[in-house]
């Protein structure tokens, strides 16, 4: 039997790897992947808590399925934005994107 803490350790590591990646990657696509890591770590948490703490209920599973669907849509939007940025600026380096202050 794998204990709950082990799952949580994995998801925590994924979470902080994602945050680290989000803050340090210079490429927008890498940043997007990092965001996905964060979301997946959260999904794991939902499933784990449901499985171990409330085994007779199903909300956690549904919520993680829901989050996966949402994140797919979010990725589609993000990629569309990134493609548009590329078309306008000919690269997707985040250090060039300082137009947001206007």
């Amino acid at each position: 039997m794998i204990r709950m803490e082990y799952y949580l350790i994995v998801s925590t590591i994924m979470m902080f790897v994602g945050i680290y990646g989000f803050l340090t990657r210079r490429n927008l696509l890498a940043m997007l992947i990092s965001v996905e890591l964060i979301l997946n770590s959260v999904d794991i948490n939902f499933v784990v808590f449901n499985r171990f703490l409330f085994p007779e209920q199903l909300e956690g599973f549904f919520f993680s399925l829901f989050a996966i669907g949402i994140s797919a849509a979010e990725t589609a939007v993000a990629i569309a934005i990134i493609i548009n940025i590329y078309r306008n600026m000919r690269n997707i380096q985040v250090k060039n994107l300082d137009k947001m202050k206007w």
Partner: protein
Amino acid sequence: MEHTILILLLPFLSFILIGLLGTRLKPTAAGAIGTVVTAIVAVLSYWTAFAYFGAGRDAGTGLFPTLMPWNAVWLPFGGDLHIDMGILLDPISVMMLIVISTVSLMVHIYSFGYMKGERGFQRYYAFLSLFTMSMLGLVVATNIFQMYVFWELVGVSSYLLIGFYYTKKEAIAASKKAFIVTRFADLGFLIGILIYGFYTGTFSFTPDAPALGAAKAMLPLALGLMFVGGAGKSAMFPLHIWLPDAMEGPTPVSALIHAATMVVAGVYLVARMFPLFIGFAPEVLHVTAYVGAFTALYAAIVACVQSDIKRVLAFSTISQIGFMIVALGVCTSADPHQGGLGYMASMFHLFTHAMFKALLFLGAGCIIHAVHSNEMSAMGGLRKYMPLTHVTFLVACLAIAGIWPLSGFFSKDEILAACFSFSPVMGWVMTFIAGLTAFYMFRLYFNIFWGNENKELHAEHRPHEAPLTMTVPLVFLAAVTLFAGWIPFGEFISSDGQAYHIHIDWKVATISLCVAAAGIALATWMYMREDRKVADGLAARFSGLHKAAYHRFYIDEIYQFITHRIIFACISAPVAWFDRHVVDGFFNMLASVTQKVSWGIRNMQSGYVQRYGIWFLGGALGLTVILLLI
């Protein structure tokens, strides 16, 4: 009587048309539009007068009916208080319609010749139309507030026309002076109107008895303040200072606005409020009489020594308006047989004065046109060059001096009779001023047409008679001046509205004729000859008085001192300093502090997503730590 609305609308449309088309219109076309419209207005006014007086008196009351062919609520205030716009016809407003449209038509025709080739000819005619419209609107006002609205419009058109030569510094200063001084007086007028409206609950000229009873205590104050406004427009001492300077405008404008029509608006105002004055504030009415008498005396003295012919005429106007105000002020009852004669006398003098003073100004315009100067020193001996102007000018001088059988004699005689019946002192003072009038008018006349000719100037530039467009109005006005005295004025206008048969008081008439003859004789003896020994000797003998009178007794300098040294230096300058340094300084400080703080924190808003991410994470962590600690 519904056609009376056209009397107001036509000049307004002409103003809009000429004003909007501007220089796209040929000068003659603009002049023709203005003149034709004014001619139509004049015909309509005559027709109105004919129909109104022809319809006769009301059989029951014996009064001419007060008609209101047009009246509409313009601005309701809630309750019973509302401002109306409309047309009121009663004897004095019909009489004023005739005066204004006649003089305005004459001036329109005259200006064709006088303003020929001037830059801004179209603008000039547009302003003339505007003035005609506003002056007519003023006299037919159905309530005091409509009168005030048109009163201000008249002030604006006067300002525009005085400053017509806007490249000339004096003209600009004069127009501003006229505007500011009359505006200062109009403040009193407005406060008077507001008090009147507040306490009587209406702006009508004739509130009903309960409203008047309620406002009884406040009426003298309200009427007094209204008179302040009237005094400003009618150039009563000490608010007269703008009128002599207003002579910087074109001469026909002086004839129309600053002699015949606008400056008598104050007299008209007092006449309009006369029933209230006599019923509720006779003491205020008598104060106006003293103000008028002092003004008349002061202006007559100053007029005796001026060298600019238009200034002489300006002071003469002030003096004559003083006569009209005195005539109204000496009324002690509404019955013309018992001390109410002055009302009729004042209106009569207003009528005759408008005609002969317009004639004098137009004549002066011809002279200025001929010699290109306002100064008497450039004139002298002009009778040989300009016979027609000479004759008409002489007619006007005789009329203003009060010589039988010219119109001025009849109206001035009624005024003097009214003054004598008020108090002998007032009567003698006014008689003395009438003598002074004769003296200064004939001093003017002899200096222009006789006396020492400025031969060098005339040889260099030979004076010539004015063109036909300018002489026709002169002849017309001279004819009116000759015969207007025989109009049975009292049959139409009197203080109680009943027919009043004018009978000349020959005792008073003899005195005034003698005094006028003495004035003329003195002027003839002093100024008709070539050498000016007597006049110059007198001027040297009383050099202090002469100099003071020449400088108008330093009233302008006193104003200058009060405004610049006292009001500007002691009040305005500290207030301006406070505004600039404390009020503005406080807000400048707010702005600069905000700006500095913004510069300090602007780096937080870098636009880099990842930096925002760090802030976001930091915030989230901080919140977590706080929540865990609590």
